[in-house]
């Protein structure tokens, strides 16, 4: 616009007689609904450049605008889990009296969803909370969310059982040589072990351990390890392997049923060395679709490289339904539930790309330094 036009516009606008803008209301703090829509996800920002200062951001991936809803602090390799039966969020963290040093206090903080404010905390003794780059299965529910289970690593492995109704620790289950918490039936959970099998721990109604049992060996950690990430469809957990096998495990009954595995790859895919890679490399939609983040030219060590495509499989037919070429290189993926699911991808710039999970069309990017490194995306379940 030239100066003349600007002048005319200015004269026009300032010629209007406006009443003064009213003073704003005082001291307003936003609130969120008691339960969140299916299109809201929790993006866990591990923040490697200030590891103690991680956070979880609540994001509405369906909204073009005002999609950053709020945040809670979850730092120092913290674990996070949203409840689906209570209006609560759980964050397992480690604090020091002098931020970086001094006295250590491990805590599970309970936040309410409406105010994203802490309402209580459970102090964890022993300084043994497992600190890993954000994994989903380090903090899990059991018994219809009556129990909260936390993975410990000191480097001895164990699982702390917390009664959330009472907000009390009720048990510590030793799981030597094993890792992670994969809930099976109402009162039992499995863990993946270094000797290529699962250890199943059975609890009683009070959360005390009753017994433990090892499955047979069903994979090879030497030759083709299963990722510790999986995707759940119904009660079946789908574990991908480094070399693109899928190992389904039926977790509906007390003792996991190891189902028949299959390969994600055609002969052509194999010759091109397609493999799963990235951080959170697998996700699913309840309709029976599995989404896997894939990269070409895989090699020993490429399993965390991320991927250029997301492949969609039907778990019944074991057929590939779709192959989405990502707009930007992907690091982690999650799919929202419901009839109009979104595929959310943490991209290589550490922004979130939102795609249609139906056809892979790109919809929007959500970022702008909202996160340093949103490694883990929790979709509502």
């Amino acid at each position: 616009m030239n100066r003349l036009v600007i002048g005319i516009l200015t004269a026009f606008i300032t010629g209007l007689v406006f009443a003064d803008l009213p003073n704003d209301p005082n001291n307003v703090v936003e609130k969120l609904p008691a339960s969140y829509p299916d299109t809201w996800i929790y993006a866990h920002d591990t923040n490697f450049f200030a590891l103690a200062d991680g956070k979880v951001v609540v994001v509405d991936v369906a909204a073009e605008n005002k999609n950053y809803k709020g945040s809670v602090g979850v730092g120092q390799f913290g674990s996070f889990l949203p409840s689906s039966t209570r209006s609560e969020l759980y964050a397992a963290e480690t604090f020091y009296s002098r931020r970086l040093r001094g006295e250590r206090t491990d805590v599970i903080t309970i936040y309410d969803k409406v105010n994203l404010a802490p309402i209580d905390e459970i102090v964890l003794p022993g300084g043994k909370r497992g600190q890993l780059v954000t994994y989903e299965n380090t903090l899990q529910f059991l018994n219809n969310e009556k129990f909260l289970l936390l993975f410990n690593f000191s480097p001895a492995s164990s699982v702390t059982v917390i009664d959330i109704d009472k907000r009390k620790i009720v048990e510590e289950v030793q799981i030597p040589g094993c890792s992670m918490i994969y809930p099976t039936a109402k009162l039992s959970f499995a863990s993946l072990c270094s000797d290529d099998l699962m250890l199943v721990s059975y609890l009683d109604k009070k959360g005390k351990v009753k017994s433990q049992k090892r499955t047979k060996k069903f994979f090879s950690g030497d030759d083709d390890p299963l990722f510790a990430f999986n995707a759940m469809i119904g009660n079946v957990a789908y574990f991908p392997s480094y070399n693109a096998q899928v190992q389904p495990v039926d977790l509906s009954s007390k003792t996991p049923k190891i189902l028949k595995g299959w390969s994600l790859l055609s002969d052509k895919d194999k010759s091109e060395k397609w493999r799963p890679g990235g951080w959170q490399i697998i996700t699913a939609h309840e309709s029976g679709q599995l989404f896997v983040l894939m990269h070409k030219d895989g090699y020993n060590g490429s399993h965390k490289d991320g991927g250029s495509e997301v492949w969609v499989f039907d778990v019944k037919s074991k057929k590939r339904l779709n192959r989405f070429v990502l707009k930007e290189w992907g690091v982690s993926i999650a799919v929202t539930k419901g009839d109009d699911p979104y595929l959310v991808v943490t991209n290589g710039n550490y922004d979130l790309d939102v795609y249609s999970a139906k056809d892979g069309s790109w919809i929007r990017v959500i970022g702008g330094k909202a996160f340093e490194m949103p490694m883990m995306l929790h979709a509502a379940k």
Partner: protein
Amino acid sequence: MKWLDKLTERSSRNVARQTSRRSFLTGLGTVLVGSTAIPLLPVARAAGGGSAEESGNGYHGVASQTTGRIDDPGDPTSCEYWRYCAIDGFLCSCCGGSVNSCPPGTEMSPMTWIGTCLNPADNKHYIISYNDCCGKTSCGRCLCNKNESDKPPYRAFSNNDTNWCLGTESTLYHCSTGVIVGIATDKQ
């Protein structure tokens, strides 16, 4: 809470839109022509090409908003929005709050620094209270620093270098609002 712009490489790429001339970035490959920054260096130019992801506010991955009022013009997610003439921090409009409200779980500081900004719609100066929202870590989104009539710390209530998360349960700074608290009658 007040500070200077963080220049990530991203922001230096989006220099033409993200920053006005009031930024360090003017040194990084741009030249001023009137009030518009024109990218000069190859890097800036390569990245300066607009795309659907770039909203008018200049923050990649942050969609524009409006106030919904013709007499309160502009985009509250933009550093150029008129109320932000002396703001320094992350815009709460980008962080789960709004121009006059704090994101969930933060606490609005009862003490503030004050600016006087010209509303281009009615050509009046308003007194703006830059209440900080406190108690969570840095929002990180939409960092914006404007210093119109900002004074050094010895003029404390006109200073935006001070952490104004004061009198709150926690002094952790999260983001800043721009709340209208009155008309500046002594300015033209």
